[in-house]
């Protein structure tokens, strides 16, 4: 996934779309928006980041899971099998992005990149609903996909690369 931070207006549509699409319980959210202000007055700059699970290439959550409930499906999406999860919290501790939480029913829940929509050839709910089309979703393994071209041509950064997880959400400057 790639997100153009300068196009994002912080409206929160992606958050609401996710909650609706995935039936996320009240008070919980799989994605969220952070407002980042930097500089000294009067030279202030601000941008928004829509954050969620980074579906890392090197997944500490999958590594520390004692039962194998946390796993990576074909294509690189990180998922949790609810009826294998014992709710120990190891993956929540392991995630540097705080992307996971205990669902009120006990198992650990997180962003799935709407894999049920992706399987039908659709974009995740957050991407398809974005009013400024600042989000892009696609196959990073395919060098000719639109998203691969975007990442090749645009300046970008990832969140906490120093945590060593090889995050797969690219923020385009």
């Amino acid at each position, binding site marked *: 996934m790639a997100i153009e931070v300068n196009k994002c207006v912080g409206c929160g549509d992606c958050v609401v779309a996710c909650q609706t699409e995935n039936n996320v319980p009240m*008070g919980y959210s799989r994605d969220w928006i952070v407002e980042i202000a930097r500089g000294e007055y009067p030279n202030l700059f601000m941008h928004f980041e829509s954050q969620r699970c980074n579906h890392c290439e090197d997944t*500490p959550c999958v590594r520390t899971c004692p039962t194998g409930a946390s796993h990576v499906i074909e294509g690189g999406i990180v998922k949790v099998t609810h009826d*294998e999860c014992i*709710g*120990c919290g190891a993956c929540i501790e392991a995630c540097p992005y705080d992307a996971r*939480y205990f669902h009120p029913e006990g*198992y650990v829940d997180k962003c799935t990149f709407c894999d049920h929509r992706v399987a039908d050839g659709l974009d995740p709910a957050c991407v398809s609903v974005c009013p400024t089309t600042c989000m892009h979703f696609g196959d990073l393994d395919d060098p000719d996909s639109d998203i691969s071209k975007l990442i090749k041509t645009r300046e970008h950064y990832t969140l906490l690369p120093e945590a060593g997880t090889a995050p797969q959400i690219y923020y385009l400057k």
Partner: protein
Amino acid sequence: MEERLFQTARDIHGLYPHVHIWGFPIATYLFLGGLAAGILLFATLYYLKGKEDNMPFTVKIAPIFTFWFVIIGLMLLVYDLHHPKYVLELFTTFRIESPMSWGAWTLAAVSVLSLLWPLSYIDDIEAYLHERGWYKLDAITKFLRDLEHKWLIPHFIIMMFRKYRRFFAWILLFLSIILGIYTGILLSAFNAHPLWNNSILGPLFLTSGVSTGSAFVMWLSNNKKERKLMSTIDMALIATELFFIIHMIMGMQAGPEAYKQAAHLFLGGEFTVIFWVIFVGFGLVLPFILEALELKGKHIPPALPAILVLVGGFLFRIIMVAAGQMSEYPF
């Protein structure tokens, strides 16, 4: 200047302002696991050294308690699970990458062996208790005997355990080291928490666990030689522990920004006083001095340094679990 604010609500329980999903039950379990590992380590080690009759409390009596420590620890672990109806998933898989997975298997093996160990000494234990007039403790041996007779632990298993005790002692010695070190490695495997994420944490927790084990034996044994030996060992362990702690903080101070911030929790941050004064001061240095004075012939009740070490070890787990979850990468 950089300021980060949540634009959309994210006040999920246990995540903000920092992750705090593990608390008292996990810290208690880590303490009990370390304590059980320490007691079993001494029991099997001195059995293998042929000190079975010279150090009866260490080899035969102290392991009566480990089964309970392990079971209470296990119950706390299960209590802390948020989806406990699937707890058996832990024992249908084995994942070498996940410390919690091999820790769960180790704990299961230790709980079985730490029940069989005292069962195989049941006559000796009874004789030891009667010799000292502790008839009130007969309930313990009676319970163990009932376990064997009524609750269908086949007698041949006990007989086999007696026959191959040496073999089982080696296994239990190995498992107790794994159990002791695992409590630290469990935490050090989380690179999202810089305070935990250092390789000295495993040896540090093992040393601390074995130190609480020796304090436990020293406290309850009434054999002078045994006490003196345990007291000497405990002093060496406390010295090692202090070295590891300083080494750990030095390592973090020399590390990247997130690790420096983790060390700051103990160097001026909110855990400074409780860590240095209460844990290091009253839980390590003071018992070390008391034990040294006792070895020099001063009369000091052995319960005093022992309880200080035990409470200190418990506090150390609580501090590490709480502070570790506060240390995160800034983003």
